[in-house]
């Protein structure tokens, strides 16, 4: 059952437009039949799909620059550059799989021992704390536009503006729709991101290397990459472990925890790294850290669902629907009344990840060889899967047009040296950030002090300010140093 689930999940994860959530939803009616004999087998099948899709979703991000899930968006920043520009698709894929496995394994151990206690603590996180978490995610990413902080701030604000399009979730008023019914529900981050990164990259490559250029991929795409990745992982094991723990905690938080966790994992990896300049150009830490956080967050999102009956992610919400259909009630009593079910689920997390990890590692040489497909086939293929990915989201051609428009916008912004990563982060997290801010203000009757009134929120806000200040101070200092060097040079020339 687990093997079938994992395999289905991997296929669904690789296919554009289909994610773990839709695959679990599609399989839900089948599990009703399975659950008649054993609900544990049913949940193992769904969990297998979930883990398989998590691993599969990274493949399109790394090889085609097209994200499958919100938390694999962050892999576009370094995964694709490592695969394509540095000519190491095998290392890029293996880095992601190894980090996924370590992050998920760590999270499962935490799940096994601390599920109830952590879930209870997570409930103490209200809108002000969640808002502080989102601010922290943005703060770590300001440094991504280190070349021009003004452009980075501009891109974040532009992303927040795009995220605000459509119905206001609090008052129900349409915003920035200009009478267009098609965008009343907002502009999805998937078509925008596919356009900015997937299509934009194709156009940028065509300009740089000419149309029909032959990729100079290394001949040795194979198991040597796995050994190299293992060596790289050993160097970064504490980074992967710490971002895994952070990711697990963020996964327990409701809403966009996993996505915020992956972005924060990336931002922290960059802050802690000595090779900051390499980020965005194919730095392995930029793949491992967010991937460990994202997979740990996916495991973490099951904790509140199982322990309290509060789903932590869309996929865990669908699995929770399955529990109700099978006649089980998630919550504290599940641990005592159906402990075989809970332990079956926990065992499926351990085994499911191991199975997915082994299958993916064996498939690395095959997957990496996709990059060797000739330009005349690969390029139109990427355009076609971009179209499928955008269309199948809402069965809407409008999303396809949005993808193409943002493809052109992405190409141009890249050319004009605007950082795209902060823009994407803001589009993905913008809605949740606004919602938590406004919920906080409603709760306090409009008093903004609520954002720093409670101890956890205050600590997180202080951390956000510190994280925000570090890259800005660094930029100012490096500019000051450059100016003094220039002045000295001019002075010497005059003498």
């Amino acid at each position, binding site marked *: 059952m687990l093997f079938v689930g994992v395999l289905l999940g991997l296929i669904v994860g690789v296919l554009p437009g*289909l994610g773990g959530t839709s695959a679990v939803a599609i399989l839900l009616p089948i599990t009703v039949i399975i659950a008649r004999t054993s609900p544990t087998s049913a949940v193992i099948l769904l969990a297998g799909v979930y883990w398989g899709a998590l691993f599969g979703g990274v493949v399109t991000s790394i090889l085609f620059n097209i994200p499958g899930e919100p938390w694999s968006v962050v892999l576009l920043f370094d995964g694709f550059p490592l695969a394509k520009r540095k000519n190491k698709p095998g290392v890029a894929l293996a880095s992601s799989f190894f980090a996924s496995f370590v992050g998920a394994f760590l999270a499962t151990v935490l799940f096994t021992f601390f599920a109830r206690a952590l879930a209870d603590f997570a409930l103490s996180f209200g809108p002000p704390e969640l808002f502080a978490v989102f601010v922290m995610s943005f703060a770590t990413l300001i440094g991504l536009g280190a070349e021009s902080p003004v452009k980075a701030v501009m891109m974040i604000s532009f992303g927040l503006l795009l995220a605000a399009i459509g119905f206001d979730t609090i008052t129900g008023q349409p915003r920035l729709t200009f009478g267009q019914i098609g965008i009343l529900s907002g502009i999805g981050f998937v078509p925008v991101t596919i356009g900015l990164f997937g299509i934009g990259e194709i156009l940028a490559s065509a300009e740089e290397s000419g149309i*029909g250029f032959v990729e100079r991929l290394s001949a040795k795409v194979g198991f040597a990459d796995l050994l190299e990745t293992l060596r790289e992982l050993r160097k970064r094991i504490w980074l992967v472990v710490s971002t895994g723990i952070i990711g697990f905690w963020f996964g327990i938080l409701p809403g966009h925890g996993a996505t915020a966790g992956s972005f924060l994992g990336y931002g922290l990896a960059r802050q802690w790294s000595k090779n900051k300049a390499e980020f965005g150009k194919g730095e392995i830490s930029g793949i491992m850290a967010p991937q460990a956080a994202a997979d740990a967050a996916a495991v973490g999102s099951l904790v509140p669902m199982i322990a309290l009956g509060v789903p932590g992610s869309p996929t865990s919400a669908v699995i929770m629907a399955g529990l109700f259909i099978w006649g089980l009630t998630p919550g504290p009593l599940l641990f005592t009344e159906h402990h075989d079910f809970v332990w079956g689920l926990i065992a499926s997390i351990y085994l499911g990840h191991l199975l997915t990890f082994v299958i993916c590692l064996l498939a690395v040489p095959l997957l990496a060889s996709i990059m060797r497909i000739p330009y005349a086939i690969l390029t139109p293929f990427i355009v076609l899967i971009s179209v499928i990915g955008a269309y199948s989201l809402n069965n809407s*051609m409008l999303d396809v047009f949005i993808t193409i428009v943002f493809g052109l916008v992405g*190409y141009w912004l890249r050319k004009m040296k605007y950082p795209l990563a902060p823009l994407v982060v803001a589009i993905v997290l913008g809605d949740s950030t606004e919602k938590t801010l406004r919920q906080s203000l409603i709760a306090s009757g409009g008093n903004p002090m609520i954002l720093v009134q409670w101890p956890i929120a205050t600590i997180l806000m202080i951390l956000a300010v510190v994280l925000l200040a570090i890259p800005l101070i660094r930029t100012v200092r490096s500019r000051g140093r450059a100016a003094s060097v220039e002045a000295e040079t001019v002075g010497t020339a005059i003498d």
Partner: protein
Amino acid sequence: MRQYQVATAAAFMFVAAVAMIDSRAGAMVDTTGTQPGGIGAGFYPFWSAFVVFACAAVVAYKSWNGPEGAPAYEGREGIYAVLKLVIPMILAVVAIRWLGFYIVSGLYMGLFARWIGRYSWLWVLLLTVGMPAAIYSAFELGFRVSLPKSFLYDLGVLPF
């Protein structure tokens, strides 16, 4: 490059100005108690647009007074390469409305295989038929995901 930087920043200023005008009604903190939490629907987009406008103005000013920099395009080859991709892509997306996804994807793959790859007609034919068939099998038959169909589907001539 300088004029392109200024033009891009000006385009952002225009978009931000339109957004600010559209959401100006709820821009200010409301103390009358008519808006939940004191801020209305327009507050967030207005101030986001304001920051975009201010930053774009700074970028435009700095670009205008900065050095000319490298030219945006070195010769015409770069523009031609981009246009060779953009024009068929836009035509294909527009054609999906009438020809459906599967016919368009076959033609699009075939066009690139022949035009860019210079493959033999046999390979072109294989790609033109094989790619839509593979996508149809995976999405329509395997996962029951419906993609746009052609006018021939409406007439009952083709299954896609």
